[in-house]
């Protein structure tokens, strides 16, 4: 009887193993993006951008920081503006690094990247990179996290008309 039960258990385990999906990646959402800027009227894909996707409901501090930066108004000849924005940028980078992300990646030489994760209601994608000639090089985009999609991560933040 015991042998029979053991055999039955082994059979059930085998069945369970058989019905288990080979991997969970097929259930993931893939957000395919291109980090791009522009120069001289032409699209300029940007490589090396550090990119992370966060569930919106879990990214309150990041969203608040992005909002603060969005509302910051530069005034020429105000020597305090640059260090102020520097500190905002440092804080953003720190939050992006320390907050649990759904996925992280970097943009390839053609600016492309893919973020893959289990579906969530909505995500905010944040990208930044240190640039020699352009301070505060960052961008963000909020979108649905329920289905595959492709998008442009506009590193010009609206200056290129993407």
């Amino acid at each position, binding site marked *: 009887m015991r042998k029979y039960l053991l055999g039955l258990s082994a059979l059930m385990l085998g069945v369970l193993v058989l019905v288990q999906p080979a991997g969970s990646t097929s259930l993931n959402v893939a957000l395919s993006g291109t980090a791009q800027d522009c120069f*001289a009227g032409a699209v300029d894909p*940007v*490589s090396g951008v550090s990119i992370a996707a966060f569930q919106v409901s879990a990214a309150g501090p990041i969203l608040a920081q992005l909002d603060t930066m969005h509302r910051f108004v530069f005034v020429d000849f105000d020597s305090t503006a*640059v260090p102020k924005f520097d500190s905002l940028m440092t804080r953003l980078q720190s939050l992006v690094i320390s907050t649990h992300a759904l996925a992280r990646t970097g943009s390839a030489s053609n600016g492309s990247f893919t973020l893959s994760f289990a579906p969530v209601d909505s995500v905010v994608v944040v990208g930044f990179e240190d*640039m020699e000639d352009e301070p*505060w090089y960052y961008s963000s985009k909020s979108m649905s996290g329920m289905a595959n999609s492709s998008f442009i991560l506009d590193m*010009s933040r*609206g*200056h290129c008309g993407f």
Partner: protein
Amino acid sequence: MRLVVPLACAALSIAIFACAENNLSAPRTVPMPRKDLIIPPGSTVTLSTTSSSPDASQPMPYYYDPIIVEVGVSGSVSMTSDPNTAVQPYNGAMDGSGIMVFGVWNACYVNVTFTWSIQGTIGPGPCLSPPSQLGMWADTVLVSGEGTVKRGPGVPQYTADCNYSPCHSYSGSQTAWVSPLPAQLLLKAPGTKVVQGSTVSFTAYVSPTKIKGYTVPLHVLSWQWIPGNGATVACQTPVNPCTVTVQEAGTMIVDGLANGTEYTAAWSVTLFDPPVACTRAPLTVSHPVTTEFGAKDGTHPKRHMGRDYGVQGGTPIYAAEGGTVVKGRGETAGIYVVVVGPDLNSYYFHMQASVVRNGQHVNAGDLLGFVGSTGHSTNPHLHFEQHSAGPVWGADGKVPKDNLIQPCTF
């Protein structure tokens, strides 16, 4: 006779269908005052402009794509019939698709008075290819005008009392026009200033991109690139975006339909002026260019907005042009000085130290500071960048792109 027939109908339910059919056998016209009317699918509809149309001089537009229109019914629907019948609106009189649905119980004759106003929404219609007849669009658009609604065969109504066969039906004959919701056609390109020989992509788009949750259809009709020497066809439709190699300043013009309404949009580009000589040399020692304007390399993952000169740390930097000093220190630019002149702004990044103060006026050739490697820099160098007159920083902290110029040479 009217009194007799309803009584007969009420007494003999089995006769209802028959008498209703009898009544319908002689279609009669229900006069309709000027109303906004939604023509049910399958109706006989004549679409044509009339003198009362908002734009009577124009023929009905030819829609390549389903268009989004304001449509629907709100308000009241009142029906009268013989005293012994029950007539009431069905499903709140509106089924959400823009088509009136109502039920008629035990009726031998019905007068229906529609009182409605334009509200609600209906999305793109079922036609995915150009219709062969304009009338095919009638079930997707709001039509407005005067006309008549007749009883007659053709459109099934509530059928439960007719053994689930059509019993009452209406068809419409209506002079009408369509009213697409407004959307604009716009054109954009990544910048207004280009280097000669650049490949520039012009993208036509609509604004808003969605109306009532539906994507606004865009149909490009033509592209025309007008350089200084005359107009040329740039791309064959339906290409979008249209890419051209810009050899001289010019304007791209696109003609297209945004939600069924034709618009023209334009985007002009000018060429970067060739670099001119600096009024005074910022560096007076040998100054090899390590990264050229517009170049990309391992340390410049996007196109370079200035020109980098690799020189020893501590090398004096002089003002190429005169103006007022904006200085500071940032994580990226390091110690920087921007000289804001009447015609152009000159940016000097990564200094070891600056010797000028904020708001100070400097002349071309005045000492600004010394070459360093502060900020995001791996080796001592001068990042020299120039923009035509404008703000040093945009309000959002971005260095402006649209007034970028090739830095002067020395």
